[in-house]
């Protein structure tokens, strides 16, 4: 599903100071895999995740998503790929403060051609599945961290994307809530969802089926989770 070859990215320019964040990265992620990317700060794991999520570009190498060469796509096509194929879960939830839980979950469907009634029923269904059926009209500020992350997961899943991209999804949660979220990810994985997650916690990475370790912009190890 995802095939990355000799991918490199640097910030700055040769004239000033060039900061190489990714060097000749090769990575393949198959459909249905749950992959955790680990590494210390500055190892390039988040940059790699952003490139996989088509939020960032790169300088050299190739990236194929479902057989399509990503660098050749224009911004509208990339947006459409993200809309239907990728779901994002962020460390800080990134819910829109003035919208209710339901409206936040409806948001990705707003960019599709779905009718309002269908958008509403899908959002309610997703939130109910995640145990938030009684929090539909609550705004993010009225929800706990765990509940907010569940809303964010509902939003990420509502268009039934091929891949769930999660950047430190438990980073802002207490351990117990973080484990709950991971159980949720595990259930999604068991149901066939492809998940790519960045984390720096071994305990969280242990939920993945494969762990990729990075250092200084390179993949230094990959294998089954401990």
């Amino acid at each position, binding site marked *: 599903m995802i095939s990355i070859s000799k991918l490199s990215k640097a910030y700055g320019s040769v004239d000033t100071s060039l900061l190489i964040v990714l060097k000749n990265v090769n990575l393949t992620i198959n459909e249905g895999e749950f992959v955790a990317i680990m590494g210390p700060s500055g190892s390039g794991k988040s940059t790699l995740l952003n490139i996989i999520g088509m939020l960032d570009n790169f300088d050299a190498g190739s990236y194929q998503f479902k057989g399509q060469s990503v660098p050749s796509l224009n911004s509208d096509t990339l*947006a459409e790929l993200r809309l239907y194929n990728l779901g994002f879960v962020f460390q800080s939830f990134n819910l829109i403060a003035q919208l209710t839980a339901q409206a936040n979950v409806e948001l990705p469907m707003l*960019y599709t051609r779905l009718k309002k009634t269908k958008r509403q029923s899908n959002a309610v269904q997703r939130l109910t599945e995640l145990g938030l059926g009684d929090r539909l009209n609550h705004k993010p500020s009225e929800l706990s961290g765990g509940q907010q992350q569940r809303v964010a997961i509902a939003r990420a899943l509502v268009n039934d994307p091929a891949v769930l991209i999660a950047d430190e999804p438990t980073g802002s949660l207490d351990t117990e809530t973080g484990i709950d979220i991971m159980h949720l990810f595990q259930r999604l994985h068991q149901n066939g969802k492809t998940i790519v997650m960045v984390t720096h916690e071994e305990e969280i990475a242990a939920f993945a089926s494969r762990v990729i370790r990075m250092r200084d912009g390179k993949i230094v190890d990959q294998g089954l989770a401990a």
Partner: protein
Amino acid sequence: MNRWLSNVTQALQALNVHRRRSALSVLGITIGIAAVMAVGTISRGGNHLIYRELETFGLNSVWVYRNWNVQDVKLREKGGSGITNEDFLSLQADKKQLGIRNITPDVRGHYDWVSKQGSREVNATVIGVGRDYTTIANDTITTGRLLNQNDINTRQPVVLLGPEIANALMEPGTEPIGQRIYVDGKRFLVVGLLASKSRDFLASIGSAGGQNANDRIVMPYTTMQRMVGHEDIRNLQIKVEDFDRAAEIGDLVTDRLLSAHPVGIAYRAETMASYIETTNKILNGVAIIGIVSASISLLVGGMGIMNVMGTAVLERTREIGVRKAIGAREKDIMTQFLMEAGLISAVGGLLGLLIGTIASTVLANITNFPLIPSPKQVIFALVVSVIVGLLSGFLPARRAARMKPVQALRSE
């Protein structure tokens, strides 16, 4: 449609987060649109008022005079007005052929004549006219009758009185019709009372046409000629069949007069069209100045929106990143911010219209000045306000739309 409604709802929610800021930018547009409305309404009102007063002269009117204002001294050699009863009668006979609907001579009494009734006396404008005079000048009578052909043919000592003259000459409660008055010592019978005419607005802007139309004493021109002791006609007043041919008919009449008096004389014809054109130029000038001033208010309002939207884009950079991450295209983000800018200006525009309309109504009631809003103007004001909003919101919206998702997501 659904999507647009959702966009509107979201725009309202976003604006609601910063209510005070949104309200201030709405206010800018409100003031601008109210100002545009006020200028337009006052301008239309003034236009209406002037037309209403010009109508008291007869819009299809042409005046033909002897032209003394010529360089060639030979054309000033001959005395008199250069217009005789024969000229008038000849033109009257050919009026259909010339495109004339009505024609009247105008013979003026001396300015120092005193008109009396009992112990009451006034200085009135005394005019000798033909039977068509009242038709041409859009005069009506409130009581009595108009002048008839017999009055003219037999030089009858009868008069029509303007309402102010009637009030000045008659004892309160006296019916003017049938009363006898003295004009320059000669006795006349009052046969009709002219209805009141307003030329207050023309007078207020210093127009010569604004002279009081209610202090006239009107008598047969033949009677007047006997009083002044000559058969000269001061000028001819004509009502043409076709307003657009007024100037041409004026020329035809002066040509006829020149062929009757080929030596030592010149004529000029003035049309109401030329007065209207001048009036329109003045009114348009005033309206343009007003609209330019009002547009500056709108411009300031637009800059307010630009500022608010610029701040909103900065504050909501992360939200833009999230929206892009979950699949929003550049045009979706653009639409969202333009929708917010458009809403600010549309609400401002509607409020401006409301305030403008209320202010116009109140002013109209206080001042008796006719203030006339136009539906076209209302639509124009709304369209302008939305365009101002969209133009002002365009740059911030484009900045938002072109943000790279990863950079937007990193912002704090």
